[in-house]
């Protein structure tokens, strides 16, 4: 990425984004106070939300829902309509931002194809969806400010059932993450500040997922050579996901493509830091490729229309060494990015791999790239890997993800080349995938004992008695 790209990216916000976000913020304020307690400001905000989508197919349903909610009738149909409207607005914001990014970087993006049918995924069980929706309804009626322990606890049984249903894993992971945050914040009325946008986002996405379950859809088989760029780690108390960003060189000789491959595991809150890799030990080929910086040969692995490889170990074979920085320099600029599935469109999902080099780090960590400033997200350096703020500040090259949140573009580092004490150093988020390579970290891990082994042993004894 060059200074000129950055100028274009971070220049004027695309038209319409501010207006769309204002309508979203109005709804978020209403959801904070609770839909059962709407003042005139909030009913205006609901009507403004409906107004913002009035010329879309959602227009009539949202206008009707806004009126009904204002009149105190707050049922699943009304809530689904306003959730859809909010999601549509943020989807439009996502599109404007991603288009700006593609233009700025000169990135080509595949056209959206309808996903093939998914014969393995039958319809999700309706009773579970109903239970999830009714909790979301209670939350919306009460408002974040009114959330207390008993209201959070009413979700416990539903969550247990959701986790037991693989077809509803996305909803289970999302609702569990939301419930844990609410529980830790109870009583919410005493919080100094409420994460309004975030919780409304989670509520909205959960409403969408509780309509008919997941929309991941089917996939088509691909073969070729996978060249890793970097790995993004996601984590909350009971789930961890690592998402590889890579360039795929298709075996049929087609153009190189940007793809992602994510694997995830359930966990508990006391399993943190480098230990999370242990939960993913069912994926040794993937972990080896990450830890040793190897290419992976994939054979007939399924790829969704959204660019996600559905990882299967049997279809993957670790190959030669493949330096992610070489891939970023040589293959990334021409790789074609995938289309984004319609319902996944939200600014939070924008995570576009880029290579930054020739920069200087400011004291606050931001990169100065030919006089242009790029904010670096130093809070997002997971403890499961070797990246630290010091390393990022000492970097001469950085592979990262461009992200956008609340009006700011940031770079989330995934890997750096740096000079420390005059010696070249390389560090990647996935370096510890097979265990920490830093002796100090390995020693600390030994001292705290093996949490995964302790809990698995207890689980084995107590759950199968």
């Amino acid at each position, binding site marked *: 990425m060059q200074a000129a790209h950055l100028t274009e990216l971070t220049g004027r916000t695309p038209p319409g984004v501010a207006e769309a976000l204002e309508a979203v913020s109005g709804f978020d304020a209403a959801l904070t106070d609770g839909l059962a307690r709407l003042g005139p400001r909030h009913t205006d905000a609901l009507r403004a939300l409906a107004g913002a989508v009035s010329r879309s197919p959602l227009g009539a349903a949202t206008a009707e829902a806004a009126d009904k909610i204002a009149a105190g009738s707050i049922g699943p149909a009304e809530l689904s309509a306003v959730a859809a409207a909010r999601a549509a607005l943020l989807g439009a914001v996502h599109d404007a931002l991603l288009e700006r990014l593609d233009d700025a970087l000169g990135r080509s993006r595949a056209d959206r194809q309808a996903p093939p049918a998914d014969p393995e995924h039958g319809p999700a069980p309706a009773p579970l969806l109903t239970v999830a929706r009714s909790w979301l309804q209670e939350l919306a009626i009460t408002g974040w400010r009114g959330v207390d322990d008993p209201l959070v606890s009413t979700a416990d049984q539903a969550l247990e059932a959701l986790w037991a249903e693989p077809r509803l894993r996305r909803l289970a992971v999302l609702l569990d993450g939301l419930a844990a945050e609410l529980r830790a914040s109870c009583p919410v009325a005493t919080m100094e500040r409420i994460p309004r946008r*975030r919780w409304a986002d989670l509520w909205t996405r959960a409403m969408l997922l509780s309509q008919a379950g997941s929309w991941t859809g089917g996939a088509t088989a691909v073969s070729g050579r996978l060249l890793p760029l970097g790995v993004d780690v996601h984590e909350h108390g009971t789930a961890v996901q690592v998402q590889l960003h890579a360039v795929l060189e298709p075996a049929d000789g087609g153009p190189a493509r940007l793809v992602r491959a994510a694997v995830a595991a359930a966990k508990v809150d006391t399993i943190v830091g480098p230990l999370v890799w242990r939960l993913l030990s069912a994926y040794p080929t993937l972990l080896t490729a990450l830890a040793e910086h190897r290419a992976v040969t994939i054979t007939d692995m399924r790829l969704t229309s959204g660019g996600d490889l559905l990882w299967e170990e049997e279809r993957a074979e670790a190959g030669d060494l493949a330096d992610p920085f070489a891939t970023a320099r040589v293959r990334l600029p021409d790789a074609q990015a995938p289309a984004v599935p319609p319902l996944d469109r939200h600014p939070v999902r924008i995570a576009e791999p880029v290579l930054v080099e020739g920069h200087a780090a400011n004291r606050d960590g931001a990169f100065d790239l030919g006089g242009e400033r790029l904010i670096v997200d130093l809070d997002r350096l997971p403890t499961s890997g070797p990246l630290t703020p010091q390393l990022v500040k000492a970097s001469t090259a950085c592979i990262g993800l461009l992200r956008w*949140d*609340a009006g700011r573009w940031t770079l989330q580092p995934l890997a750096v080349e740096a000079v420390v004490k005059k010696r070249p150093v390389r560090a990647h988020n996935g370096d510890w995938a097979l265990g920490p390579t830093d002796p100090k970290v390995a020693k600390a891990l030994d001292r705290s004992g093996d949490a995964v082994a302790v809990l698995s042993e207890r689980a084995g004894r107590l759950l199968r008695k």
Partner: protein
Amino acid sequence: MDSGEAGWEERSAVRVTPPVQPRKLAKVPFVELAEGRLQGVVSSGSDVARVYVSSIAAETHDFSCSTNNNRPCGGLTAGGGRRCKHLNALIDEAVRQYGAERVARHLKVEAEEGDELRSRLQGVHRKAPAAEVFSRFLRHLAYLEVPASPEPLPEMHWFPAWGAVR
């Protein structure tokens, strides 16, 4: 201050729950701040098959300790004011996991570090049901038995793995 702090409420990806610190789990495999109590499960020092369910109520700070089969802990005397070693281990591990301040806030007591917290918890023994806490522990363990699903989880973009608090 981070220049983005002003817009915290307008951001999608922010850290809401403070991070949990790693700790040894063999002695006290489960600790939680929930249901108006600090509660958890403590291993028996002598019998691998036995665990104690210990809890301390917020506000009153009354405490309870019994085996998961509801047998009273021998370290507690009826109506007595002294905590057994299981309860003290529970407090210590909770402080390790959550930090003294968060534990104190949950129990509604003013304390900034562990020793102070221990000395300010002046409740008496009052039996609380163990079965509920034990079943929450089983539910906690059940996460480790959830079969993996290869489906990508786009929702996890709202949950970045945050770095250490610096």
